[in-house]
């Protein structure tokens, strides 16, 4: 019971975000906003600014898209940082001047929280990642213990069994159809 109370909020996040995956009712992201900043460029000859260093100096967190990292012939470094509910398109000159185009998708945070196992550079999100693990483990334990508790009660056993059989049959049939038929 305490396990259920512990993960009750996460289950609601999972439910709402899952509905949005299927129906897209949450508001779309806001138009991007642009801002600039300056960071310290490496003083050692031959060294250049790295995306992770820029991210940390700007006080941001999130993962740098490896595919997005590009350097022009003039030395302009461009890359994208992804964090839950936000993306930053960054361009950096060799001298450390940074232009950022930031896209916010506040309501999509619910989707980003769904199953998140953390985000580089954020302790808070690492704790959320642990909470994700706990919820997943609880979900699997609850299913097994739920079957045991269900079979030990007499009331509603027939109706519950019927729901269980129909749901299992339909989901297995749909899975078989999609796997073998395509």
């Amino acid at each position, binding site marked *: *019971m*305490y396990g*259920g*109370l*512990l*993960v*009750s*909020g*996460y*289950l*609601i*996040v*999972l*439910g*709402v975000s*899952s*509905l949005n995956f*299927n*129906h897209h009712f949450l508001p779309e992201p806001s138009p991007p906003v642009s801002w600039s900043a300056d960071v310290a460029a490496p003083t050692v000859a031959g060294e250049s600014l790295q995306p992770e260093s820029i991210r940390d100096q700007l*006080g941001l967190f999130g993962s740098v898209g490896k595919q997005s990292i590009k350097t022009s012939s003039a030395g302009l470094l461009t890359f994208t940082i992804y*964090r*839950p*509910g936000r993306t930053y398109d960054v361009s950096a000159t060799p001298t450390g001047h940074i232009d950022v185009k930031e896209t916010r998708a*506040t309501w999509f*945070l*619910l989707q*980003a*929280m769904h*199953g998140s196992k953390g985000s580089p550079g954020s302790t*808070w999100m690492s704790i*959320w*990642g642990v*909470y*994700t*693990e706990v919820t*997943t483990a609880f*979900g*699997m334990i*609850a*299913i097994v213990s*739920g*079957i045991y508790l*269900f079979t030990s009660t007499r009331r*509603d056993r027939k*109706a*519950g069994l019927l*729901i*269980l059989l129909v*749901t*299992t049959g*339909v*989901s297995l*049939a*749909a*899975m078989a*159809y*999609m*796997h073998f*038929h*395509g």
Partner: protein
Amino acid sequence: MFTIVRRIHLFTSVFLMAFVAMYFVTGFGLIHDDWFPRKPISTTTRPATLQYTDADLPYDDPIAAGEFVKQKLGLTGQVNPQQKPPAKKGWTWRFTIGHPGVSYNVAVAPNPKATTAPSIQSTTQPTTMPTTMPAVIKPNVTITEYDFGPAGTSNGFHRLRGFSGGWGYKLWSLMYDASALSLILFSLTGIYLWWKLSKIRWPGALVLAFGILFPIATFMFLAMSK
């Protein structure tokens, strides 16, 4: 009231047992993708030819366009529910079609025209060889097929949604919606039952406070932090 809520809790839990069990099991694979890699185990590319009219690939109905391509090219699965048209009319369409475990990326260029192969310019060819080849239809479609193996199939079922693709997919989406609603109801009715059944509430209240406040705080943190 208590009996009704108890029944809702029981029946949603039974429903969750059957359908959401798959989500928790496949979700475990998703959050541990280093243990269950989801990269394709094989990739094949083949050309094809597709003749079509503007009505076959309606610009304002990309799903219908994808269904046409799927049928004509003999592919199976679901057109990506997020399918978009090309940036401009007349440009190459790029479709994603697939079912759990298999995905096709299909690039459909504008209609092929019967063309004559270019004249052979090489001076090393014998002079008796004809300088032009018979008319040929150049392929305008490239199909790239990705096979994701068992881990990718599991991931595919976890991420499967949308109502296009046939009865199996519609049924799946209905079950998906029902299970999402069940998750919410299961959680809310569980809190109600705990409140009604508990004589000493403070330990549960502490745990519940964490369970509710932590997701809210995380949302606020992500929304308000830089």
